[in-house]
């Protein structure tokens, strides 16, 4: 893992290692090239997933970020190698006004459905995708549900009561456990 990280570090200066996961932040213009390189040179052939995060200060669901962020979409892919020991996430930022990025299908065929999901949930446009259409949602559905601005209607009607965990936790676990032994 360490050795692999050092190899990655040679190509990607800003790579960080956190919780046994190598995070690489790149510019959205190098999206395809970086993935090709990771696949061919670093043998990261296993495509785990692709998804996005909607960074926004004004949210209608959940909590807004504590520190102000610049509104953008962060797109993340997760790759691992043949023996699944090395885990790499690649992320990039794209603007919310022009949410365009190249499709990864030519590099990883498995990106197809993940990109379709990101397309319908966030409204991100994947260029050169062969059939960029809705995956889960019905055809006439309007809006992108995973956007932070997309309201969760039930939560508007009735706020969730459980901000505080209602069930008491066992505080002092002094028992030695089983009765069975």
């Amino acid at each position, binding site marked *: 893992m360490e050795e692999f990280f050092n190899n990655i570090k040679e190509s990607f200066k800003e790579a960080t290692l956190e919780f046994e996961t190598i995070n690489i932040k790149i510019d959205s213009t190098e999206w395809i090239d970086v993935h090709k390189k990771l696949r061919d040179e670093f043998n990261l052939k296993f*495509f785990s997933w692709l998804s996005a995060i909607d960074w926004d200060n004004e949210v209608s669901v959940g909590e807004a970020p504590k520190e102000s962020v610049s509104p953008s979409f962060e797109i993340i892919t997760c790759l691992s190698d043949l023996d699944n020991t090395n885990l790499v996430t690649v992320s990039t930022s794209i603007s919310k006004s022009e949410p365009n990025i190249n499709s990864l299908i030519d590099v990883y065929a498995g990106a197809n459905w993940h990109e379709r999901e990101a397309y319908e949930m966030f409204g991100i446009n994947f260029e050169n995708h062969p059939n960029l259409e809705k995956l889960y949602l019905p055809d006439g559905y309007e809006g992108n549900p995973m956007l932070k601005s997309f309201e969760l209607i039930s939560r508007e009607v009735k706020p969730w009561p459980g901000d505080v965990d209602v069930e008491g936790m066992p505080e002092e676990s002094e028992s030695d456990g089983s009765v069975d032994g």
Partner: protein
Amino acid sequence: MVNALDPQNMNSFSEASVSVEIETEDMTLNIGPQHPSTHGVLRLVAKVDGEKVHDVKPVLGYMHRGYEKLAEVRSYPQITTLVNRIDWVAGFSNEIPFIAGAERLMEIEVPERAKHIRLILTEMARISSHFVFNGAYALEVGALTPIFYAMEDRERVLDLIESVTGGRFHPNFNRIGGVKPAAGAGPTSKKNIQDLPAGFYRDTKVAMEKVIQAADQFQNLIGGNEVFKKRTKNVGVLTAETAEAYGVSGPILRASGVKSDLRTQTDYLPYDQFDYDIPVGENGDCYDRWDVRVKEMVESAKIVLQAIDSMPSGPLQAKVPKVIKVPQGRTYVRAENPKGEMGYYIVSDGGLGPYRLKVRTASFSNVSILPIMLEGALLPDLIAIMGSLDFVLGDVDR
């Protein structure tokens, strides 16, 4: 006599031209969402030419419950309840990577005993999931009897899970920092928290021996059946390269000859303390996928037996704050679930709930190879291939 084959006469003999070259129109067949073999509500729109299938288009979303969105408005302990329902055939194993992710971000060291209990129940969930697969797969290739045996044997395992957690399918048993006291463990006081019900070790040993017997029985009665072999060998061959590019994981990937198992490669549970094999297939056909799962049942039973013998004593729960707030950060924890790699990408902003929770499910990627595997297959093979992928729609749609 007018020559019907002459192109000039074709128009006036449009009916005659049919007999010259039979060009049949493909029939669009809609398989599902209500179909006995689609494991729930998967829908396939396929073009069929006689029995041959091509241009298969899976249509998803009939089971979409939007868990990623719902998770954004819930606190961490509440999300455990949600994620239980992703792959309901192995409910317990869904909780593990999420809880492990939250613990990793909070830097909580989970007590060994809690880890062992988690491991035992995860393996039991794997066994029960593979039992369902075994019964259902035999049913899909036309054998009606094995499902009754599979369900009966699974019941023993589910009873054990129930005796510990209180739930058969949706245990909701994990807590951040450990596990909750067992359901059947009798009265609990703050001083003496009992975790496993009386007689659990004995019952588990009996049940696991039965699992090994049952797997042996499956190997002989289903795997040794000539018709079953004819239906599954060299059907739906999946190469390792395609599987990797599509993110196909779990028993399907191992059946294609890749020895990859997250249990040995990551440390979300203490699997390194036990001795077990990772079954690997050779051809990547339906038979291998079936075979790998049956062998895995035996290995899981062995792990459980070892874990019972080496169960450490100690507390069940690490010290956690009363109100759980996960520090800012992000992590991806993956686990080897019965269906493949399942993981949660938790993006925390230091609040009560995650800012974003990405759920990576095994079945989603596993199903995405269907259009490739089903190209040119026969209709009965379509069912055999689909069944061998062993997906659950809750796991596909989330």
